[in-house]
Each structure stands twice: as C-alpha cells, then as structure tokens.
C-alpha cells in the first residue's frame, strides 16, 4: 500500500498466507464427501481470514511505528512466522503442503487441470481488475483523501478530523485481502504446493518496490510503466543473454534511479506539468 506512505515489506506475508489458506483448505477438506469444488472456495475463505488477521496486526503496528522501523517490523513478522511454521512443525512445517494430488482426487483430473490453469488465470485478472478499480475508487472517495492526509502528516490529519486508525486499518485490510487473493490463486491454486521457505520471501516485496519506484511512486501509471520496464527488460535479457541478465540489469536500474529519482512517470509528469497531458499521467 503506497497510499499510507508505509513501505509494506509485509505484503509478501499476505501473499504467503493466501497461498497457505488455499493449501490448507484443499489439504484438509479434500476427503470430505460432497464438497467437491467447494474446497477451493473454503480455501479462498481461509486465505482471506488468515490475511485479515495479519493485516490487522500490521495496521496495529502502523499505529505505533513509522518509516524504516515499520518496514523492519514487518520483515520481523514475516521471517518470524516463516521460521515458526518450520520450527513448530505447523501446517506441515518445512515440508510444506503439496496438494496437486488431493485436488485431483477431490474434483477429478479434468476439472483440476481447468482450475489450475484457465480459472486460476482468469481469477488473477479479475483480482487485478478489482485492485485497479478499488484504487481508482479509493482515490476518488474520502478514503483516498484521508489516506493522502495520513501519508503527508498524521498529526495534521488528526486535527482535521481524520480518524487515522480507521483509515490505516482500511488500507491494510484492503491490501491484505487483495494480497491473500493473489496468493491463494496465483500461488496456491496454480502451483499446487506451498513451502514456507518459498513463499515468505522478502525479496518479492523488494521487487515490487523496485517496480513502483522505477515508474514513479504516487502516480497511477507509474507502477505499470515500472512493471513494464522491469518485467520486460528482465524477461528479454534473460532470453537474449541467459545467465548475464542481472549483470546488465543492475547498472540499468542504477542509471535510471540516478537520472530520474522520481521515476520515469514522475519525470514525465514534471515535464508536462500544467498541460492537459498531466491529467492522464496522474
């Protein structure tokens, strides 16, 4: 959630818990008679539940900590949770949950294939669309204004009558639920397994931040442009020059940051400030 100005290193925790929710749903309910395809929905609900809990926890932290401290606390939760699952042998411990077989048993091979491919992809797109819609909706509603105020100056926001606790909670819940949905579908359902060491990986969040910053934080188009630069250049470099893409990629990132500290879109925005184009870049 860039909106509150909190760097949410814990976003990956939401995705991970989403993946776990789906895996738990399928692993523990596949033998229940008559549930059939409903286990996927049970899994989805579990994903949302787990993520809500952790989102509330993060919102609670966000009430007390700011800046780098908040970011590191979220890393703490993420790593703590991961090693706790491994250490306490919870939910299969480090062995994780592998449920491709269970899913096939519960809904049949054909349906399982359909679910993990077509439906999972479709769901990801729906979630992405939902996320975009929510973004725009929030930006145009009081929530967006409140979050801007919170991001800029919490004390001033409070004095203006903004209930910062409420809006932070909204922001984190939204972020958590969307993250969990993505995790449940794009990770859990699509891949059919979850290992704690693979899902609770802070690196993913860092990549997301890279994407946003490359494009320019606080702009709607920014993440899209950043994602294109990041995703495409990495993808094509990997294709053209397998094994060396990172060596070329890292200096490119550095150069972009040094030349356009506000991101590519941010830079463009400054160029066109005051013209009609600006509206489209916002």
């Amino acid at each position, binding site marked *: 959630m860039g909106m509150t100005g909190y760097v949410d290193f814990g976003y990956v925790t939401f995705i991970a818990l989403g993946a776990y929710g789906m895996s738990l749903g399928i692993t523990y309910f596949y033998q229940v008679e008559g549930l059939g395809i409903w286990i996927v929905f049970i899994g989805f609900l579990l994903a949302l539940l787990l993520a809500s809990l952790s989102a509330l926890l993060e919102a609670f932290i966000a009430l007390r900590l700011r800046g780098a401290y908040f970011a590191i606390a979220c890393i703490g939760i993420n790593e703590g949770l991961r090693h706790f699952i491994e250490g306490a042998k919870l939910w299969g411990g480090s062995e994780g949950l592998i449920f491709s077989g269970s899913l096939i048993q519960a809904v049949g091979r054909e349906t399982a294939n359909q679910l993990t491919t077509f439906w999972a992809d479709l769901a990801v797109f729906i979630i992405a669309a939902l996320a975009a819609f929510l973004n725009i909706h929030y930006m145009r509603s009081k929530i967006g204004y409140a979050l801007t105020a919170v991001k800029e100056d919490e004390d*001033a926001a409070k004095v203006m009558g903004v209930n910062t606790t409420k809006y932070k909670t909204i922001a984190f819940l939204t972020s958590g639920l969307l993250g969990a949905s993505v995790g449940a579908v794009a990770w859990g359902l699509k891949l059919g397994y979850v290992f704690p060491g693979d899902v609770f990986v802070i690196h993913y969040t860092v990549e997301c931040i890279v994407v946003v910053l490359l494009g320019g934080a606080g702009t709607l188009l920014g993440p899209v442009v950043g994602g294109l630069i990041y995703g495409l250049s990495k993808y094509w470099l990997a294709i053209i020059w397998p094994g060396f893409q990172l060596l070329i990629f890292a200096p490119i990132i550095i150069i972009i940051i040094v030349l356009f500290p506000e991101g590519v879109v941010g830079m463009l925005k400054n160029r066109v400030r005051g013209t009609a184009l600006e509206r489209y870049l916002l």
Partner: protein
Amino acid sequence: MSLLRLENVTKRFGGLLAVNNVSLELASGELIAIVGPNGAGKTTLFNVISGVFFPEEGKVIFEDRDITRLPAYRRAPLGLGRTFQIPRPFGSATVRENVAIGAMFGTLGSRINVDESLEMADRYIDLVGLQPHREKLAGNLTPVEKKMVEIARALAMKPKLLLMDEAMAGMNPKDIDYMVDLLIRIKEKEKIAIVAMVEHIMRAVAGLAKRVVVMHQGATFVDGPTADVLSDPRVIEVYLGGPSEKSKKDLVTNQTS
C-alpha cells in the same frame, strides 16, 4: 454560554511546566489574541485544546462538553479547527484537495460528499485569495501561501472555533495587514470565534482583537481589553526586558517536544 472553557489546565514535559494552571473562557464569535514571548506556552496550550496532547491536570470544556481526553480527530467534527505554527499542508495534494479534505472530515462529516467538498473548497480558496494557485501542489507554495491554504482548510471544516498558531510569524508588514483584515472578515462572515496567537507584533494585535491574553512562563499573565493590556506596565516589562535566558532555553525544549 461560553464556547470554550479551560479550567486550571496544566501540562508538563518531564520536569518542565509548559502550561501552568491556565483558565480561560471564550464566547461564541469572539476574536481574541494570545500574545507572549517565545516559550510562554502558547503552542502547547493550543495543542492541549486541539487534542494533540492531553493535559495532566484541569479540564477542557467545549460547548459544555468535557473534551479533555477526547482524541484530536473527534474534536474536529465538534467544531474545533486549527492551523500550525509552521504551515503543514499536505504537500503532494493540490491546494483544492487540501481544502476539500478539511470539508470532508470537519463538522459536516458524513453529510458532505467528495464533490460537494471540492465545491466548498473553491469558496474558501476565493475567500483567502488563493484562486490562482487552486490546482498547484501545496508543497510548491511560498510559506505565506501555505499559511493561507491552512486557513482555508481549517475554515472548510466549518468550525465554531478557529485556533491560529503563530498567525503572523515571518510576515512582512503588507502581509500582516492583509492577515489582520482577513481574520476580521472571516469573523464577520463565518460568525466563528477565533483565537489568534501572535508572538511579537503588537501593532497587529491592536487592530485585530478587542481582547488580549498575555502568556508568560506557561501562565496567563494578563487578560483584558486590548487597550488596557497594551498599556499595562508589566506587559511592557516582559516585552522590553525580553525573555530571560532561562525561558529561552525552555522554549527550545518546549517546541521540539
């Protein structure tokens, strides 16, 4: 009925007495000036009234309701608006959005939607004279313009009482005259009470308020009609003698905490 009543309010920071046993009463629609040297406890008093800090002792009563322990964001909808010593508009939002945020979360609360807020914002932008800067980012304005944004934002909250922290600090005489004029206009037009905090500019105080409260070392020192207060020899001594070295030091701790 008084709009705001402070009863023996005391606020400490560690061992430092920032506000010492202050009592004050304010009627609806009244405009008063609070003056006092740096470190006199004016800003802390404002923070206690607006809910940024809670006092250790005493009560804050707003329209017969005890709001001493009410969080800041719940005071605003009751009709308490304020500006900050150093202007703090939301820099990455436009002037219009800044003012609209005031309307959205102020006294009108859920009775106003986003579009209405934006319309209302336009009215107050006109009032403070920021029309040319309506679509600019607030962060890119001059300090005086930022102050105007804050005033418009606070007014958009439709408050019953407006607290103005350091209303005229760092302004040139022309701006000061404009500000005095603006505050009087606001009082007349919006029918609200204003507590304006003024540090050193006595000239402005005379034209601005009929009643002046002088604070010194955390306590109300003199409270009365402007003409009387300004000619009070004790007040003159406090100002001409300048604040003692000690209270200067207090000021630093006070304001950074």
